[in-house]
């Protein structure tokens, strides 16, 4: 079980990177670039709220899992 938990750590790290890419590159940057006022609020939320929490959180969680912080013993 501990091996699975650690191996899944890699999945969470990759998920964090993918989430960061999606939120910043696919969503925030085009919305900032559009210059429309209605796009600015979501772009700010993507960049400063969602990216640190989702991407950063999953990355750290994945690293902890990989290091065995959540192992049974």
């Amino acid at each position: 079980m501990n091996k699975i938990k650690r191996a899944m750590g890699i999945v969470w790290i990759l998920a964090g990177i993918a989430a960061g890419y999606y939120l910043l590159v696919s969503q925030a940057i085009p919305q900032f670039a559009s210059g429309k006022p209605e796009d600015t609020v979501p772009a700010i939320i993507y960049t400063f709220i969602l990216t640190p929490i989702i991407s950063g959180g999953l990355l750290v969680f994945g690293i902890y899992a990989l290091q065995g912080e959540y192992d049974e013993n």
Partner: protein
Amino acid sequence: MQHDPASTPVVDKKTLWKVIGASSLGTLIEWYDFYIFGSLAIIISTKFFPADNPTAAFLSTLATFAAGFVVRPFGALFFGRLGDMIGRKYTFMVTLLIMGLSTFAIGLIPGYQTIGFFAPLLVLILRLLQGLALGGEYGGAATYVAEYSEPNKRGLRTSWIQTTATFGLFISLIVIMVTKKSMSPEAFGEWGWRVPFLLSSIMVIVSYFIRRNMDESPLFKKAKAAGTTSSNPLKESFGKKYNFKFVLLALFGAAMGQGVVWYTGQFYALSYLQSVCKVDFDQTNYIIGAALLAGTGFFVVFGWLSDKIGRKPVMLAGMLLAIVFYRPIFDQIFQICQQSRAQQALALTDTVQLALPDIGKIIVLAFLLVLFVTMVYGPIAAFLVEMFPVKIRYTSMSLPYHIGNGIFGGLLPAIATYLVTKAQTANQVAVIAGQSISFDKPHLQGLWYPIILASVSFIIGLLYIKNKDLQFQE
């Protein structure tokens, strides 16, 4: 330190119910205050956010709604720190007053036509204050009740706090409906919508006086007397790896999935009926109100069950059911509305009035959504308080809860509505261009957001949460 039953302060049943009652009442009022804004989102958008396009106006309001939610984690940090340093009781007294005053003030703001740009700006500021207050309230109430509870009934006792969010929404819908029925539609649109906001002040005053006479949590008093409270709860909660890893686990393994299941079942269901299915506004409130009323008791049932079989199986079962059944349930709701629309020869953009049997069918489906909510949400307070020791409990449990619910859950209606609109637009473009449509069921596209997040949370919870993490620590 592991839980020692002998050291748990024993209080009599009367005191315990007083604690539960006073905590729940205040929390219920805060939820009521918070929800009337969301429930009146469409009307508020026309008053404070001028726009030619009603969808854009609606999204603007949802964005403001989200601003209220996004700020909640900051309230959790600010008031959580205070609660761990000076006490639970005084902290959630302050949050109650901030919430009450902000709500009352929203009811007094002149519209955009009267004071221009200041109108939406003031609404936004007060909405942010509401979010801050809510961020501090819930963790305090849950911690306070848990620290009074018997060790083997913590799920049951704290589940009463869990009912308040749904009751708050239910009461907000009832107050809005009664206010609407008591006056002409013109009067409601003109000034009547302010009444639910102004009424809040009476409830807050009552709750304030009830809470004022309550005693501080016995475990906090004990820690304070022993000098074991934290001088820097933020640093201890998030600066120490040992605690921070549990904060992350609580967030990704429980609160995230719980948040999206909760907001899908209660808020997106309402938004979906109004914006996607285009059901009559009053009928949507009746439908969701009835489903909430039928389902609310199950918070206590699943809180009690979590004392018997564990928090984890109950919560994960709720997430799994939601993942599997969301698309069939929402599709069925849509089909019922479409059939009714076809029978009345209405266009897709027309508002539909449903017949009674159809209302009954949708209430049953909405009840199932609420049932999933009760499974994930009923035990979550006990789950979170058991993860962290008394000296950093308020801070540590509040943050994952409010990120899970405020951010992952709170943004759900806006994101889901956006996904549906995007899919519908793509289909329209394809039809005009003579191509085959991209989305077979565009009305269900919004559900991918909660389904994916709940799935991630389910896997993390299943793999990483251990029952020994959930032993009450003093």
